[in-house]
């Protein structure tokens, strides 16, 4: 039972880490960026390539992958979202163009790395296993949980208390008013995508360290759960994404333990529906009233 709680906590940390980047863009820009899953996959492949082919130590690969994520985020915003800004169907069209961007990115990964699974070299990462009171925990799991909590705290501070965060919130509230007040809206938008994508790409590397391999559909596998997490936590809420990720992870583990593995997904989505019935805005969401 205690091992199942640990399993749920750590798989929930992965969900949360993926969803935090996802929800950041939605919370600030109201854009649903469906290329996030592809950037997650790209981060995983790039991390493996850096370590396996170029001999970069895994600890150095993390910041390099994050930087690559920044670059991808900037390109994504520039080609898939900015040209649509101001259109009446900006949000829907952006959703579609992000799907296209994601598809092209995965196709490029396939052309570059082929279709087979990829893993880090065995000696690249000292994935020690700790036995704490009979619970088996890997170093990769500990790092993932730490990174997820740190990312949530740092982003929450950034959005709530920093100069950049104030600019982001101003853009979120009203881009035109923010522009009149001197906020460089395009720069803030690009920065949000860069930050979100850096997190997504880093999450991809951590996913590989946790599960053992990368494959081209790994982003798609987690995308649906990521959606569930941001809806459960409240669209745009960083703390909500963290809590909801862990809740979903625990729900899955406990369902396997007490009911059966066939019902794993059923239980997770029953939890989602139950929360939405009782609190439609999600755990940490707020009901926004927009004025015309």
């Amino acid at each position, binding site marked *: 039972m205690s*091992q*199942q709680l640990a*399993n*749920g906590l*750590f*798989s929930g940390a*992965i969900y949360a880490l993926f969803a935090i980047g996802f929800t950041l863009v939605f919370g600030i820009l109201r854009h649903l960026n469906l290329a996030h899953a592809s950037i997650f996959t790209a981060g995983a492949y790039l991390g493996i390539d850096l370590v396996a082919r170029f001999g970069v130590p895994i600890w150095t690969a993390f910041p390099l992958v994050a930087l690559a994520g920044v670059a991808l985020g900037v390109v994504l915003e520039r080609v898939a979202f900015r040209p649509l800004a101001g259109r009446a169907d900006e949000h829907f069209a952006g959703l579609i163009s992000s799907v296209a961007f994601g598809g092209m990115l995965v*196709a490029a990964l*396939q052309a570059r790395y*082929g*279709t*087979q*699974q990829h*893993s880090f070299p*065995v000696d690249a990462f000292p*994935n020690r*296993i700790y036995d704490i009171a009979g619970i*088996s925990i*890997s170093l990769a799991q500990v790092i993932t949980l730490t990174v997820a909590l740190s990312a949530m705290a740092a982003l929450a501070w950034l959005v709530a208390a920093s100069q950049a965060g104030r600019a982001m919130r101003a853009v979120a509230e009203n881009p035109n008013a923010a522009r009149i007040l001197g906020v460089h809206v395009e720069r803030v938008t690009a920065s949000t995508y860069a930050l979100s994508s850096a997190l997504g790409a880093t999450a991809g590397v951590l*996913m590989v360290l*946790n*599960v*053992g*391999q990368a*494959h*081209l*559909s*790994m982003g*798609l*596998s*987690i995308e649906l759960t990521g959606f569930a997490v941001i809806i459960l936590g409240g669209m745009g809420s960083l703390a909500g994404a963290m809590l909801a990720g862990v809740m979903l992870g625990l729900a*899955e*583990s406990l369902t*396997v*333990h007490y009911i059966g*593995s*066939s019902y*794993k*997904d059923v239980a997770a989505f029953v939890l989602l529906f139950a929360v939405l019935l009782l609190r439609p805005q999600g755990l940490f969401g707020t009901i926004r009233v927009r004025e015309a």
Partner: protein
Amino acid sequence: MRKWGKRIPTLCVTTVAAVSVLAAGCVRIEPGDSVTSRPGLNGTGSGPGCGIQDPVPVGAVLSLTEGAAFAGQYQREGLELGFKELNAREGVRYSLIMEDDKTDLGEGIAAFEKLIHREDASIIIGPTLSDLAFSTFEDAQDARTPVLGISTTADGIPEIGDYVFRNSLPEEYALAESIPAAREALGLETVAVLHDSEDEFTSSAYATMIEVLSDEGLRVVADENFETSDTEFRSQLTKIADGDPDALVLSALPNATIPLVRQARELGIDAPIVGGNAFNSPVMIANLDSAAEGLIVGGAWSSALDSEGNAEFIDAYIDAYGRAPDQFAAQAYTAAKMIDAAVRADCDGNREAIKNNLAQLDGLETVLGTVSLDEAGEVDQQPVVQIVEDGEFTLLEG
């Protein structure tokens, strides 16, 4: 009203013409229709002395992209290598027409339609997945076009019709061989079972697995499942570890095997893991390193197999593609040789001749070993059981 009156005859003529065109078009896809025998595919001589004027068109529908591309790419390489070697021989040339089904049923049906009706393929190889085979093979059967499955191992596929063949050893045959071999070699008494419940191929194997375990008197202490897209298996593995089985029997697709085995070892499950075709890949051993020790693999092919041309096939494949072949590549390569044997038997590259001669294929020596096709079009070959020891596949001796 007068205006319409003038137009009525024109409308009638147009409607009749349209219906005639549609009816004419429909004739091509009526069940039972067949492409007329092409004289250019009728040769002279037989066997090694056979000579056919036109290249024999061979279609292949494989999952070259998306989910099943892990297998489709190896299959493409195996086929290309096989037909390249055949085209270097005298007498018969083959034109290989490759289509990507993108791991999607709709794309697969469209690709079969194109190969059957537009390319007039004499035989079609593929598709990669059993899930796509049921509909596409029915279309081929209706159009009297022979098909040869190279990885479609689900139950009921050869029964679709007399134009349907496969050289892909069903997972259940491999498991039926590997479970008793493992029990005998390792003295197993209890097992845990874990399978992918979403996939046709693995579900079909699971049903057989349970039967074989029962026949062998092995007690199942845990029976868990997961979905194809899952990457996190620790919850199921924790329940399995609680049962303390002598071995874990697994039915999964290749994408799941590495995370499953690694996570099992991380949770302290050191018991042997018995798997089917999905384990049969050199990539898997390289990626798992020491975690791969003790994996027992039942399959159709092994690099360690002393079969005709196996060593040469492996060398040629590595030379051509820079990586070692896996079972998917070996089965695709074998398909080329089987088709060549069927064509050369009557020196005829037309559909009916290929179908008739594949149905009589008996005792062909291939890299998979001695291969025959029974009256239902099912492959008959001896499965290979291997165990990973010191980082290499070795044949498991009882």
